[in-house]
């Protein structure tokens, strides 16, 4: 149970949103919606602990996550448009570097499986500089697979479905379903309202703001 | 009438596609589909004349476009994920710079109109470095408006609908409809199969390749 207690966040000097209260249950998928510039990315980055909250706090199981940051960030995987892939490495090397960075060591099989989970194993030796947009995205999403091997509780995904073709979108949804089964929590932003048929919560930042207005 | 006569294109040392034959009618919208890495972006960049074709040629009204490159490129507007916006300029300044670069001079009203056409006039003085992904995209798409003032015949758009929220997607579609009315030709890539209700051609690179196989 992750809770945001009247969270206020600035970007530059402008308030992105103020006194936001909401909570994310486990084994539950939440779509963050809202028009461009409404603060979806900002929200995700705040939860991931990149952007310090101006006011309010974020608590997981009723403990402020900032008390032990490292404990918190270990539990989550964050993927956004920037992806964190370096052009000079191949898809596989990037994945390995990321694993080592996370402090996780795993077997060759699992790596292959992870790549296969987004249908990337035939591209595993392609340099990122030679990947198309969609391939890059998939190379980044391959990380999600390791949540089934190591203990990860949260996925924070910023517009993950962009650039993905039909097939890999399906694979991605499969990953999501499996993760929810292992009662993880997923918070993702998207503009594609009919991305998910399955049941899911919706957090609409615009609605919240309108409420505040009135 | 734009025709690709058995076009073969390399990326690195690998063939992206070979002996592609197809044509794009005017006042007609073509969606380029295909799985990741199938060569959509490459195709657009080749048509725009950025990537030289290994074999074959591109002809507009039965004239090879490479005979007078500058004449050809003037007729088209190309927008992709890179967008060509510089972080240090505001939305408006970027648009102006682009106009001057195209060699077009226009009135203040038209600028405002262009921004309004993608609902950006209230962000016109925001620096690109402070824009969210969707705002950047819209800042780039604002250029399309000028096809109604100056003579532009082609739009080459690489996944234009990514990052756009509902409202701006509608505005974007409106732009497309207007452009088709002024019988322009639109070639755009997307993975969102139900993006357009209106009638449109489809160029599916995967299908073409399969045909080659058999």
């Amino acid at each position, binding site marked *: 149970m992750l809770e945001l207690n009247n969270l206020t966040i600035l970007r530059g000097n402008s308030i992105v949103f103020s006194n936001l209260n909401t909570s994310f249950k486990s084994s539950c998928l939440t779509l963050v919606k809202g028009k461009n510039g409404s603060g979806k990315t900002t929200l995700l980055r705040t939860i991931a602990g990149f952007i310090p909250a101006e006011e309010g706090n974020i608590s997981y199981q009723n403990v402020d996550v900032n008390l032990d940051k490292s404990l918190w960030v270990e539990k989550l995987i964050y993927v956004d448009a920037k992806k964190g892939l370096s052009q000079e490495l191949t898809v596989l090397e990037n994945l390995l570097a990321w694993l080592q960075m996370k402090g996780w060591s795993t077997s060759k099989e699992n790596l292959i499986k992870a790549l296969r989970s987004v249908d990337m194993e035939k591209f595993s030796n392609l340099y990122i500089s030679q990947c198309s947009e969609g391939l890059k995205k998939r190379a980044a999403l391959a990380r999600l697979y390791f949540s089934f091997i190591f203990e990860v509780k949260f996925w924070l995904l910023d517009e993950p479905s962009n650039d993905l073709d039909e097939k890999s979108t399906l694979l991605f949804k499969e990953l999501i379903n499996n993760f929810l089964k292992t009662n993880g929590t997923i918070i993702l932003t998207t503009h594609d309202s009919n991305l998910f048929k399955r049941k899911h919560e919706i957090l609409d930042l615009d609605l919240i703001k309108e409420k505040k207005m009135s | 009438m734009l025709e690709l006569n058995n076009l073969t294109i390399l990326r690195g040392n690998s*063939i992206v596609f070979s002996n592609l034959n197809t044509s794009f009618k005017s006042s007609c919208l073509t969606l380029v589909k295909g799985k990741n890495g199938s060569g959509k972006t490459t195709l657009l960049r080749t048509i725009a004349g950025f990537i030289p074709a290994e074999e074959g040629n591109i002809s507009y009204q039965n004239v090879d476009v490479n005979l007078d490159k500058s004449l050809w490129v003037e007729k088209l507007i190309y927008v992709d994920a890179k967008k060509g916006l510089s972080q240090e300029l505001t939305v408006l300044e970027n648009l102006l710079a682009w106009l001057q670069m195209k060699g077009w001079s226009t009135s203040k009203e038209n600028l405002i109109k262009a921004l309004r056409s993608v609902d950006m006039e209230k962000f016109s003085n925001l620096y690109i470095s402070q824009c969210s992904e969707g705002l950047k995209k819209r800042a780039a798409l604002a250029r399309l408006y000028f096809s109604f003032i100056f003579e532009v015949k082609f739009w080459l758009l690489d996944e234009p609908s990514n990052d756009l929220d509902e409202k701006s997607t509608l505005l974007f579609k409106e732009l497309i409809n207007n452009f088709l009315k002024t019988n322009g030709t639109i070639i755009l890539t997307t993975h969102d199969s139900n993006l357009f209700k209106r009638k449109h051609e489809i160029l599916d690179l995967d299908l073409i390749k399969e045909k*080659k196989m058999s």
Partner: protein
Amino acid sequence: MFDWLANPHRFSRLTGNLQLPLIILSTTMISLGLYYGLFDSPKDYQQGDAVRIMYVHVPSAWLASFLYFSLAISCIFYLVWKHPLADLIANAIAPIGLIFSVLTLITGSLWGKPMWGTWWVWDARLTSMLILFFFYLGFILLSNAFERKIDGSKTASVLAIIGLINLPIIKFSVDWWHTLHQPSSILRMDGPSIDKEMLFPLALMMVGFSLFSLYLIIINVKTMLMEKKCEALILKLNLKEFS
């Protein structure tokens, strides 16, 4: 000339029966030159035996300069008339020229030490050779710094041409620079008073080195031609995957 050679088959055929004579001739000439240079030539009346260094130093110097010239020329051919062969030749020359420029500098230093009591002087000729070395280096680095080889070739060719324009200017400017500061007397390098017994081994080495380089260039070009063929075949294989 390039037009005529551009066709790889003709090139191979033409050079095929050149190779053997080239290598034999060059090796014999060099070994003869070495023998005369070391054992069977007079000392210089003022430099003593040190003059023997000249027999390796001067030919390398000459070749380093000449090879760069031909490299730049073939780059022009490549950029203007787009002859793929010209590019190959340029790339074949580069490493050879690099080595010769290094040799010049080192043997030169080895010569300078006993003669001038110093390894290095900032003389125009020396310095411009050092700069030449950097142009060779830049050419090689740049032509390998891109993902696709042709991008590298094109860019590096431009660099080579820039060098062709600038090297004379640089050499001139360094000479000019010497006239500004009173040139120090001992550090002049107008060579020893060469008599013909010295001239003979020198000539041997000069010609030997040149023929040897020519041989190497031919080999390298052939290698690259084959590599190109390989790439083409790989493409064919990819094509098969499609159709």
